[in-house]
């Protein structure tokens, strides 16, 4: 039985696809057979972030509608051989993802994979509901910013009432907070919500903090999951998050500003 993890947020542009790419790559790198599924019908982008956009022939919707087999649609990653990508359709309607169709595909994937990572579209409409419906765990990607935190709380409410686990009265979906685009400098200056602030408001366990980093844009430009940039702070922060997801204890890093300027060091001394 595969573990089904949804990467969700409510708000757009907070780093869901970036996170899906890195978390799935990290799980696969540790030897777990992993598939990452794009649920954003009509706005396909996971393929671009994973650098397989030119290898897409069949997609998720083709499989649901019986126009292609799962094996025809799955794309094997060229860097990590236990990683597969299931791209979404660029042309179909959102409603092409039916509950029954999604269930059929998830069940079939469950037979061969250890982890199924579902990359949710933004919003709380049909596509987002389908992405989270079958989840065992949820990674709620949040930016330290008011609208993102509020939307994350909204999506948490939906996980607690509209997921399959909630409807069936099973053990609730396991929730994880992933704070992205974190800038310790601005937190220190009182310009940005701190990790502790967001944790206090959302009241779910912290999976990791990904620092704001130029590496993220650089790696998406090249179709390289951030986690493979092993020298970078953002890459290492994602690696820590994957380790924690697998139950490992790791101390949180990159939450304070390491590179102190000359002036702040002088004044801090006093």
């Amino acid at each position, binding site marked *: 039985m595969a573990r089904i993890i949804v990467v969700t947020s409510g708000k757009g542009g907070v780093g869901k696809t970036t996170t899906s790419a890195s978390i799935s790559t990290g799980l696969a790198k540790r030897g777990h057979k992993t598939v990452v599924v794009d649920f954003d019908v009509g706005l396909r982008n996971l393929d671009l972030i994973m650098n397989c956009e030119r290898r897409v022939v069949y997609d998720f919707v083709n499989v649901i509608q019986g126009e292609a087999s799962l094996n025809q649609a799955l794309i094997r990653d060229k860097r990590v051989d236990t990683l597969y990508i299931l791209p979404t359709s660029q042309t179909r309607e959102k409603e092409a993802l039916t509950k029954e169709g999604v269930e059929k595909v998830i069940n079939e994937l469950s037979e061969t994979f250890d982890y199924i990572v579902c990359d949710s579209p933004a919003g709380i409409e049909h596509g987002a509901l389908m992405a989270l419906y079958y989840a065992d765990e949820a990674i709620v990607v949040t930016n330290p910013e008011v609208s993102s935190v*509020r939307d994350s709380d909204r999506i948490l*409410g939906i996980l607690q009432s509209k997921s399959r686990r909630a409807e069936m009265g099973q053990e609730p979906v396991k929730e994880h907070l992933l704070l992205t685009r974190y800038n310790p400098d601005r937190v220190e200056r009182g*310009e*940005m919500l701190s990790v502790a602030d967001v944790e206090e*408001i959302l009241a779910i366990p912290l999976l990791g903090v990904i620092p704001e980093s130029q590496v993220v844009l650089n790696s998406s430009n090249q179709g390289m999951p951030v986690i493979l940039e092993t020298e970078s702070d953002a890459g290492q922060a994602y690696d820590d998050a994957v380790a924690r997801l697998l139950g490992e204890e790791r101390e949180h890093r990159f939450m304070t500003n390491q590179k102190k300027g000359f002036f702040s060091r002088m004044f801090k001394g006093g």
Partner: protein
Amino acid sequence: MSFLDYFRGKKSSSANVAKERLQIIVAHERGQRDQPDYLPQMQQEILAVIRKYVQISDDMVQVEVDRNGSCSVLELNVTLPER
């Protein structure tokens, strides 16, 4: 408050404002989340009935459901205007 703190604006930083605003709105929205779907409609109808007799504004009727184990209590608060 030191000289430096004055420039840093620690006292009423925008992050603190953000946190306070979020705590209020999130608590409010969580309260509504657990309410039954029919509540807003029922509130409107109760309001309409009261308005047949007294002119009151929308926010003067508060309807809430409190759940305590197997029993739920419908709490209705109506504030009447001064005569």
